[in-house]
């Protein structure tokens, strides 16, 4: 027997780790992986709440989130390839054309 709150706490911890990765990582691809980690953390809390409230509809929502995440990953990685082609680097410190 496990309280639902443990799952939610794990989800929060994973989300925080994702945010920290987003902030400290200096490689474009690993930054993107941290975003995927955050999406997964949110999915976990969705499934936990679905178990609590309305299993079928909650899980279908997670299914849609997964679809959007797949589309996002495909487009994001294509953008990374385009950036690499234009700048020949993956270091986010050097991709600062739009920085003030």
């Amino acid at each position, binding site marked *: *027997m*496990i*309280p*639902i*709150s*443990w*799952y*939610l706490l*794990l989800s*929060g*911890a*994973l*989300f*925080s*780790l*994702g*945010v920290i*990765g987003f*902030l*400290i*990582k*200096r*490689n474009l*691809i*690993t930054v993107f*992986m*941290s975003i*995927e*980690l955050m999406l*997964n953390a949110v*999915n*976990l809390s969705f*499934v936990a709440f679905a*178990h*609590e409230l309305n*299993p*079928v*509809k909650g*899980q*279908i929502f*997670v*299914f*849609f989130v*997964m*679809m*959007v995440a*797949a*589309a996002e*990953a*495909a487009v994001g*990685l*294509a*953008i*990374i*390839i*385009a950036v*690499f*082609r234009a700048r020949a680097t*993956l270091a986010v*410190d050097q991709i600062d054309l739009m920085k003030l």
Partner: protein
Amino acid sequence: MLLIIFILFAGLCLAGAINLLLQTHPINSALSLIVVMVSLAVLYLTLGAEFLAAAQVIVYAGAIMVLFTFVVMLLNAGKEERTLGSFASWSVGFPAVAVILAVIASVLIKSQGLGTVHLSDKITSTQELSAMLFKELVLPFEVTSVLVLIAILGAVALARRGDGERKGGQ
């Protein structure tokens, strides 16, 4: 039994996420992200979401991570150079993360009436999910298929070489 499974896979999950942050090579980060996703699939199973557990392994650990490792190898990404992060991330980012985690934890510790998970809980069958998806939610499903189609077209359009580049480059 359930407690052991939860602690084992929650631990794996956190270890994988921390390893993702510590590794300097993108391939190692990608492999630890796969560990996170597979252990999340097991946690979905304990929550009675068998279809989502399968979809997690197939879509995330399979398709998306293959795409990631493919891009890492295609772009020949080497070790990243560690820098100390920007001033903004130290002054705003990390305190904000700490505050978010603290708020979530305090709310959860105080919360009453949240249920518990048992191993004997009802498993949501794929049949129930598909009945809901193809009867009540047909329109969102079809709209999502259009979204995925647009994403495919966008990815191809972004990743292919432009005409000018081809003439100049080769």
